[in-house]
């Protein structure tokens, strides 16, 4: 229940307001393995704790990577860390992307904005165990070209066999020659086999709702094959503070990854 001290090994800038931090444990202790989709509570001395999805390689638990967008004082404190600084880490917590269930199937990954961060460990896993999966399709949308994360990796992922990586932005620019349009507009370039598709979705809630509608209504993908990662206020990450409740679910321990089947009657309810 106490944060474990970790040293900031590196800080890299992904976009104008988003940074990736790489942490290593201070005492060289062996780190618990994490599953793609899980999160940690990151503690900044004297400031506070925040839930942040782990966005690094699950086969390298000793190097924890977190991609953080600076949106307020707490996240600003996190992204202002410099190599050599300490951060406390508690975790990993929460449920994981169902990568076992996806074996032998097409994995469809749909990410919006910073939502690509919690999905990256899943992509790493699939690429490392490529033969366990059929096709890998990554659909990624961001606000503008400057907000696209992991650009170099997106290019290298596309080169894997049987892998499709499509990106788009909501707002183009004069020099942007890529796609413009919301992430659901990417679906028209993708052929899906509904009975052998597992979809993993992460992004703003509205975006996830629209993507789910596209998958379920227009593509016939089953609700129990669609998975999403939810977010709510979190203080303790162990189901005691009560803040992260979403209907009857505690996002910290029943989530953050849920199947759409579990959330069907909750998604879209006003002020739930």
């Amino acid at each position, binding site marked *: 229940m106490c944060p474990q001290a970790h040293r900031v090994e590196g800080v890299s800038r992904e976009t104008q307001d988003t940074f990736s931090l790489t942490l290593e444990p201070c005492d060289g202790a062996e780190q618990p393995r994490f599953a793609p989709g899980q999160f940690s509570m990151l503690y900044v*001395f*004297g400031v506070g704790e925040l839930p942040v999805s782990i966005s690094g390689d699950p086969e390298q638990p000793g190097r924890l990577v977190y991609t953080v967008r600076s949106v307020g004082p707490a996240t600003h404190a996190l992204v202002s860390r410099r190599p050599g*600084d300490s951060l406390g880490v508690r975790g990993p917590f929460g449920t994981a992307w169902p990568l076992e269930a996806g074996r032998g199937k097409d994995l469809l990954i749909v990410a919006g904005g910073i939502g690509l961060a919690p999905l990256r460990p899943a992509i790493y896993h699939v690429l490392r165990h490529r033969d366990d999966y059929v096709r890998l399709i990554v659909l990624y949308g961001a606000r503008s070209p400057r907000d696209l994360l992991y650009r170099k990796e997106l290019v290298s992922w596309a080169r894997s066999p049987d892998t499709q990586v499509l990106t788009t932005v909501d707002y183009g620019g004069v020099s942007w020659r890529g796609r413009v349009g919301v992430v659901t507009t990417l679906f028209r370039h993708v052929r899906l086999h509904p009975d052998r598709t597992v979809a993993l979705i992460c992004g703003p809630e509205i975006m996830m709702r629209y993507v789910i509608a596209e998958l379920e209504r227009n593509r016939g993908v089953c609700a129990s094959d669609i998975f999403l990662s939810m977010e*709510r206020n979190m*203080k303790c990450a162990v189901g*005691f*503070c009560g803040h992260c409740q979403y209907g*009857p679910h505690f996002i910290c321990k029943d989530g953050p990854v849920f199947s759409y*089947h579990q959330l069907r009657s909750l998604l879209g309810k006003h002020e739930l």
Partner: protein
Amino acid sequence: MMPVEHSRAVADLDALRQLIPLLEGCGYQVVGPTVRDGAIVYDTLRKLEELPVGWTDEQEAGRYRLKKRDDNALFGYVVGPQSWKKLLHPPELRLFEVQRDGGNFRVLDNSVPPPRYAFLGVRACEIAAIRVQDRVLIEDRFTDPVYQSRRQGAFVIAVNCTQSAPTCFCVSMQTGPRAYQGFDLALTEVMDKKRHLFVVETGSPAGAELLREMNCREAPPALCREADEAVGRAAVQDRQINTTGIRELLYGHFEHPRWDNVAERCLTCANCTMVCPTCFCTTVEDLSDVTGDHAERWRKWDSCFTQVFSYIHGGSVRTSAKSRYRQWMTHKLASWIDQFGTSGCVGCGRCITWCPVGIDITEEVRAIRESGITEPASVEGDDGNT
């Protein structure tokens, strides 16, 4: 619930006066009801006389007054604004201290042994509430070590109610007025002009041992019957919640107009969550001293009624009073069942008494149930919550 027939003893006031010294001799800090600032609250008791002797309470929706009785009953009242969660799940708790060490930090190892409490005067609904919190804080996926250590060390002396307040509805929530389990000793006060006695039941080996030290004789059957009748009088209650299908009722009426109605009255003052014996929500605060070398993390009671409770970057999810009242009531009566297998409500009535505008949870449920309004299907029910 079948009454358990263990043999019962009878204690008079003199015998009962031994209780606190005996418990203190065993290393317990005795906590029980006492009068302070016009209310009956829970605090350390050194003598039996510190109980609210000769006092009773008058409670209604939004109203609480103490009144002198015409006798010297020790337990002639029901529950006040505080509950035992004040001791088991403290309102403020320091979780840890951290020391800065250059660019590094160290969490200091300065845990203190937990207090050993003896609770004197726990009502049946309160035992039920403690068991509800046990389920949340000990028996679910994670264990709260502070709650667990205080809970395991606690000695419980229950008191069976011989009267109920108009705001009580433990009978419909099946939590009282009689305590059947969850205590070390249980007392039922029997008094009239001629005598002032207590029928004592044991509920555990520790309770039996303590009773032996008090040298009480066995209670005659007639006295036991009188005690049972007295408790029976407390079971006559006006208020009730019909809990049949309450999960489906509340899940299925998410947009019921009654929520707008209650929102017009609710001040989101959070009193109900503070007095509720099962509400467990907390927040954390990180503080550092002026030098910046020493920081502490504190845990404090929180309430889903606050504006910032549901804040995530950009704004709160539940901004309207309507959404916050709905969240509290739906959680208490419905979601709790999905989460922990029981209702979160024990029918103690505190939320009704202590609401400044007298919102009555039993009335709100009735209003939704009897309105005959049905919402178009998005059928709640099996959400795969298995």
